[in-house]
């Protein structure tokens, strides 16, 4: 097992370079005129354009730009964004709130998916099962673009249960509403997958044995059946955490949370290569770590799966 983890860590380094190059290439393909993008609609004087092009090697090829970026990165200097701010500080500013927001959303979604998923698997075809199905599908079908502002308007402004917006170091309570909204984007899939997996396991012979051992239904479900049906849910949780971090763009916008999502969007809009790659590098690391944890959880959950 230890050798497996070491091998996975080595792979991470390769993947890290792969990911940064892919994103750099995408940003390069997306680059038209970063200097103008920065100035928005104001005209850009020739001298300003030349100076910035020079400083950020904007006129050079993809490979040389990537080389500049990587040589700086290896010396620990994440470089400067085109708007002149240290990318390191940008990361420090936006990651904490994003980690908190996405973790809260994930815990809420996983808890709901687990609880309702198991319950609707037991009561397949019941009113609860179909009710939960319809509710989660409605959440899924309502684009986040509609859900976030409506949630803010109803719970934030009209009922006043939550503050309408949250700042970078907002309190746990202030982040609750955005976390709930974010949770809706992943809860539907997690719940359905759990429901299917539990339903499938309820048919297994060991459940009959467990009943024959005189165990209470609660124990049969929550000890014996659950552990066998967690693998699909765990897989999704691994993927969803990263998706929540980079995909929270709309929710962060509506609730004015300066997180990774909105910084990425800003970077992409102003064609700011170094900034976007800086963020994506950290994101890819999160995905890599999460996927390693998920793969280890496979082995923990199902002894038949072994890694040499």
């Amino acid at each position, binding site marked *: 097992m230890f050798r497996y983890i070491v091998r996975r860590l080595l792979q991470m380094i390769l993947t890290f370079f792969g990911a940064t190059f892919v994103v750099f290439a995408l940003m390069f393909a997306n680059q038209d005129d970063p200097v103008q993008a920065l100035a928005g609609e104001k005209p850009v004087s020739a001298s300003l354009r*030349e100076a910035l092009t*020079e*400083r950020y090697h904007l006129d050079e090829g993809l490979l040389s730009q990537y080389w500049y970026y990587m040589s700086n990165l290896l010396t620990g200097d994440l470089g400067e964004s085109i708007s002149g701010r240290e990318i390191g500080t940008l990361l420090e500013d936006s990651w904490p*709130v994003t980690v908190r927001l996405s973790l809260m959303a994930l*815990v809420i979604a996983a808890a709901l998916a687990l609880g309702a998923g198991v319950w609707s698997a037991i009561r397949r075809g019941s009113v609860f099962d179909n009710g939960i199905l319809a509710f989660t599908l409605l959440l899924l079908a309502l684009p986040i673009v509609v859900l976030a502002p409506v949630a803010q308007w109803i719970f934030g402004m009209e009922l006043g249960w939550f503050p309408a917006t949250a700042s970078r*170091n907002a*309190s746990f309570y202030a982040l609750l509403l955005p976390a709930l909204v974010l949770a809706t984007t992943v809860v539907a899939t997690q719940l359905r997958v759990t429901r299917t997996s539990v339903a499938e396991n309820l048919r297994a012979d060991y459940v009959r044995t467990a009943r024959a051992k005189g165990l209470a239904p609660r124990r049969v479900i929550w000890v014996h059946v659950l552990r066998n049906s967690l693998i699909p849910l765990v897989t999704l949780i691994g993927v969803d955490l990263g998706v929540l971090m980079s995909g929270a763009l709309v929710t962060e916008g509506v609730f*004015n949370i300066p997180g990774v999502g909105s910084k990425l969007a800003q970077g992409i809009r102003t064609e700011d290569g170094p900034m976007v790659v800086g963020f994506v590098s950290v994101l890819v690391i999160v995905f890599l770590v999460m996927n390693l944890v998920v793969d280890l959880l496979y082995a*923990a959950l199902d002894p038949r799966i072994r890694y040499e």
Partner: protein
Amino acid sequence: MLGKRPWRMAAIAAAISLLVAGCGSGDSEDPTAAGNTVVIGISEPQHLLPTNATDSSSAQVLNSLFYPLVTFDAEKNPVEVAAEKISVAKGNRVWTIKLKPGFTFHNGEPVTAQNYIDAWNYGAYKPNAQGGGYFFDRIAGYADLNPLDPDGDGPEKAAEPTTNKMSGLKKIDDLTFQVTLSAPFASFKSVIAYSVFFPLPKAAFSSDGVIAKGFEENLIGNGPFKMKGSWVHDDKIVVEKYADFKGVVPKVDGVTWKIYGDQMAAYADLVDNNLDVQTTIPTDALANAPADLGERFQKSENSVFEFIGFPTFLPQYKNPNVRKAISMAINREEIASQIFLGSRTAAKSFVSPVVSGYRENSCGEPCEYNPTKARELYQQNGGPKEIKITYNVDGGHKSWVDATCNQIRASLQVNCIGEQEPKFAVMQDKLQKHQDIGLIRLGWIMDYPLMENYLNPLYGTNGGSNYYGWSSAAFDTLVKEGSKAATPEASIKKWQEAEDILAEEMPVIPLRYGQNVYGYSERVTNVEVDLFSRVNLYELETLA
């Protein structure tokens, strides 16, 4: 391996993550609660160094930290503020600026002429790549600081500037300095009102011509407020009253500039009274603003001018009559009231009403909505079967472009589509390559309140924003003569003649003038927003 109980595993994981989520609760105190201070909403400024800051958010913050040389009275004429006296020699080339005595920077340094000279030189010096650099292009010696690349994108690099001091700037004594322009310009006094011309203390420079690291996060200015803590990016900038400020003392003790990524989020806080002033209420919230804010929802003039440019380099748009027909097919009043709910007014001339010399309806008949005449004229002159209006998607223009297209379709019976370009830069690039992207949506905000600041950049042959390839020698000479004219009144007469040529040629379709549409909370009163969409910090008052 992980113990027998999956439940213990899950519980531990959930606990850890909630702990992490909860721990960063930091200062969630409500910024508005503290006494006689106000919270004003802005978007994240790109830069705060005066010579590098050209967007409206940074201008607002700088306006609180610095004291402008000049400002404008009700008739939009320039009036001295930090300057004692600004005089100009005959020929409108040599300007002498005398400062009021006794002013100090927030760190105690006295304000001297040298501060202005160092700041302006820093701004103009090309390697510093300052966003506001082009404001100094009229001062003699600017060219030495900005040698141009001889062959454009070619291999040759531009030469290094030989000096970082402009010859046109000369210190007379501690409180007076002289500015010599490369060409006479009667209204230079209006130009130096802009925030780019603020002074910088010696403390700003770590060595000659090099800004100290972190200065931008902890600005030291000569204005009524000074920084309290440093600039917390994407969160807030807090300023408090500067005790021994010699100028006009504002009524509030401090301002928290709260940074919003999205205007709708700011509006939500405004309605919730978490935010005291929002200078631009987003169009999407206009429908509910009167109901939500009542009489705390107000409007005031600003310099925004929206128009559609014709790609005159394309054959189908060469004929002025075709351009006039399209202009007559658009009902400006209906769009202004139905789409913008009165937050914009119909534009019937080529410059903004805020500049002196503006004439009501200088465009005349082509700007009147007359569908039947428009269709006749259009068909007589063989207008194209399909009209495209291109706009950059990240500016929120989709709704009014679609509405305009629907009107054109109804009036001229031709197909009309709103074409989205992901970025403004892509649109510009296609225009420079004379590609057929149809009509182009454009807008302009003035740098200083002069007709020239509309005529030259938008319609001048090598105007910075003249993307439609329209040029008229007669127009250019009239504008130049206006600039050189002895008195501002003479300049205006020349500029108005130039505008008449525009009415004849119709290179663009004037659509709308913008307005400041702003709102404030129940905690404040006397809220005024000026021409540059800046809150007047001196009149602003909190209710007890």
